[in-house]
């Protein structure tokens, strides 16, 4: 079994709460809130007006740039408002509000349960369909998928790496998706292989999901050029660069994209969305979310239409547990603690909701750095977190840049492992933001 070579930590995976819970459909909301930013890149631009009647699958907002993504309507009804809105973390943005009426879909969308195996489209047509469907990476980064499929000139993809790692503790949505829709994912992989013109695909799955490894291996057997790579359990194996290293032993250089080493990485949930878009004409309008936590009454995996207020999903899982201290959007390692849950819709970015009891929500008091070097050992990028934090605090931006602060992937291994409970990332994140801004400024002046 393989894994990535540098650093990493072993948090308890805590997947027992929601693992193997069948994917449950969340009922339609009365009002859907559709944020215009659900991806990395430029915000999408609304193409509907207040008062417009929309059907499920209709385009609501079109990509606002090269790196951006379409947003299609997840519900049918009337647009009541397009305007300011704040997300669960307090960040302001724009959203489209729709009063839901019935559930009327665009006629071209195939809503049957049939699996369509044949795909005769040309690569260009496949990529166009993916772009039209507004598909973004559902593993967390939300990078528009069609952009990844168009390698820059001179670069050639050699291998498609499928991310079935789900290394974040607690989350089980990708695991369950592989178990329930493995065949569709395999078809999606074949479609992407065709779009990229590669003849090899590797599905990386960590070995805490043995049933998923077996299931995908069985399905992949009949197909040429699709292999399953079981991986040793280690966080952050789902990180793009770590996964490429683990699967094919190539390390993406600092500042470069995976295509530099001939790899394109896509998450299993993204690939399922590709299957639905290409074979069933269904744009990305819903995703599977894990709602979990030690004290959640009905932890599970819920298929939720975007725009559904998360309060409704939480109600389905039995409500907010009484002693909840923190609600995290995503997993415990990289997810963000929510300030409130009102007016916050499910969207492309939200892979799960995790309820942490109060006792686990409070950060321990910091002690002196004892220079044990455990953060250096844990850092999967081979950085020196203790040093970067200090330099960040002292605003030594040039030194930060020289010590490769921009390579930090925000995985949290250093903070997780620090025996002195030092908040290393609290110093590194601002340094990264500042150094990034300085680099952009410098490049603009050239």
């Amino acid at each position, binding site marked *: 079994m393989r894994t990535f070579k540098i650093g990493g930590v072993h*948090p308890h995976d805590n997947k027992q709460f929601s693992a193997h819970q069948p994917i449950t459909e969340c009922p339609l909301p009365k009002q859907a809130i559709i944020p215009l930013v659900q991806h990395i890149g430029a915000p999408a631009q609304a193409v509907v007006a207040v008062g417009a009647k929309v059907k499920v699958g209709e385009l609501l907002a079109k990509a606002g740039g090269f790196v951006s993504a379409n947003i299609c309507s997840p519900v049918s009804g009337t647009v009541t408002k397009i305007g300011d809105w704040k997300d669960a973390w307090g960040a302001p943005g724009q959203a489209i509000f729709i009063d839901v009426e019935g559930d009327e879909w665009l006629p071209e969308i195939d809503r049957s349960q049939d699996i369509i195996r044949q795909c005769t489209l040309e690569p260009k047509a496949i990529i166009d369909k993916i772009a039209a469907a507004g598909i973004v990476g559902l593993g967390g980064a939300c990078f528009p998928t069609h952009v990844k499929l168009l390698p820059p000139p001179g670069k050639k993809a050699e291998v498609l790496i499928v991310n079935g790692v789900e290394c974040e503790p607690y989350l089980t949505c990708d695991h369950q998706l592989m178990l329930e829709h493995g065949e569709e994912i395999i078809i999606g992989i074949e479609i992407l292989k065709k779009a990229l013109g590669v003849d090899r695909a590797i599905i990386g799955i960590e070995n805490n999901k043995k049933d998923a490894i077996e299931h995908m291996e069985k399905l992949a057997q009949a197909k040429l050029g699709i292999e399953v790579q079981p991986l040793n359990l280690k966080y952050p194996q789902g990180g793009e660069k770590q996964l490429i290293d683990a699967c094919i032993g190539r390390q993406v250089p600092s500042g470069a994209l995976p295509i530099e080493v001939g790899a394109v990485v896509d998450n299993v949930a993204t690939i399922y969305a590709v299957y639905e878009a290409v074979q069933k004409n269904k744009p990305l309008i819903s995703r599977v979310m894990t709602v979990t936590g030690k004290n959640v009454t009905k932890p599970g995996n819920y298929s939720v239409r975007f725009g559904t207020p998360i309060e409704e999903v939480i109600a389905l899982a039995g409500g907010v547990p009484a002693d909840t201290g*923190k609600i995290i959007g995503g997993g415990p390692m990289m997810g963000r603690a929510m300030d409130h849950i009102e007016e916050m819709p499910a969207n492309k970015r939200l892979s799960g909701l995790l309820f942490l009891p109060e006792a686990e929500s409070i950060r321990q008091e910091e002690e002196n750095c004892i220079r044990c070097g455990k953060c250096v050992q844990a850092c999967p990028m081979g950085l020196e977190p203790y040093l970067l934090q200090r330099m960040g605090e002292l605003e030594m931006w040039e030194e930060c840049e020289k010590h490769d602060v921009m390579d930090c992937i925000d995985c949290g291994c250093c903070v997780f492992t620090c*025996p002195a409970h030092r908040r290393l990332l609290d110093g590194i994140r601002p340094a990264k933001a500042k150094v990034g801004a300085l680099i952009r400024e410098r490049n603009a002046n050239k």
Partner: protein
Amino acid sequence: MKQFIVAPAPHAHSGDSVRRNMLLVILALLPAYAVSVIEFGWGALITAAISVLACVCTEWCISRYLLKEQKQTIGDLSAVLTGLLLAFNLPSSIDWWIVIIGAIVAIGVGKMTFGGLGQNPFNPALVGRVFLLISFPAQMTTWPVAKGFATSYLDAETGATPLYYLKYIVKSYGKPEAAQDIANSVKALPDIMDAFLGAMGGSLGEVCALALILGGIFLICTKVITWHIPVAIIGTVVLFAASTGWAGILPEGLTTCDYIGYELLTGGLMLGAFFMATDYVTSPMSAWGKIIFGIGIGFIMMVIRTWGNYPEGMSFAILIMNACVPLLNKIRPQRFGEPKK
């Protein structure tokens, strides 16, 4: 509207703590301590108790009355560990007041002067030990002979350590007039098995190599320390001792293998390699830094052992390499995606 706690990710922690690490090191020292209690009796018990107590008191007093800290740090157990390590480096028959002076220097000068745990450039226990070695050379180099559970604390017999004989043997090479003394020295060396198990003279905690190695392996397995420093030190010592043997310096009756064995198993090597050089605060951060640090210690120690005036050089070697740590920390770890160095 309920208020939730907001804090940046990650929201999980390994559960590791400074206290846990210190506690594990103390645990790992216990087997060696048990052996010295058996070998040296009350002396070992009393010296260690005084040392630990004096270290903890010094830290408490300094942070309470001099630094006027609101929060005491003795709970992290680092002062207890310093006290124990200091005691391990002292002869068990040493006067109690010397122990107290050592503890005050170790914690006061070696650690608190710089701002407490994490800030000190030199290993505090070794600062204390070397201070005593220079101030009280006679008392510091008079070791009781190990003889089971001795009941009298102050009247133990004293004897030279194996390192003393080894140095004499190597230093007297090529002097025909010393031939008889060399032969006597070879005879005076303990059995290699005794050296391994600890039935010989020496400082309180350093006699039983077996117990120290077991403790060290325990620390590596529990991930408190990494293998780099101990392996680098031991490897360097083996190479150095082997080349002494290959140079043909050793007299009859002392094989190269035995010589390597004595260098490894006697003196402060094992204690130093697993417990003193690996002190978090005063050792480098990156793997390569640690390896160079270990090689430096092994080399300097063997130079002192072979040519220096002191029979043992572990403390000096570690302190000298401690001074190089800021420089060694300039060695970057292998970055992801960087061509192999």
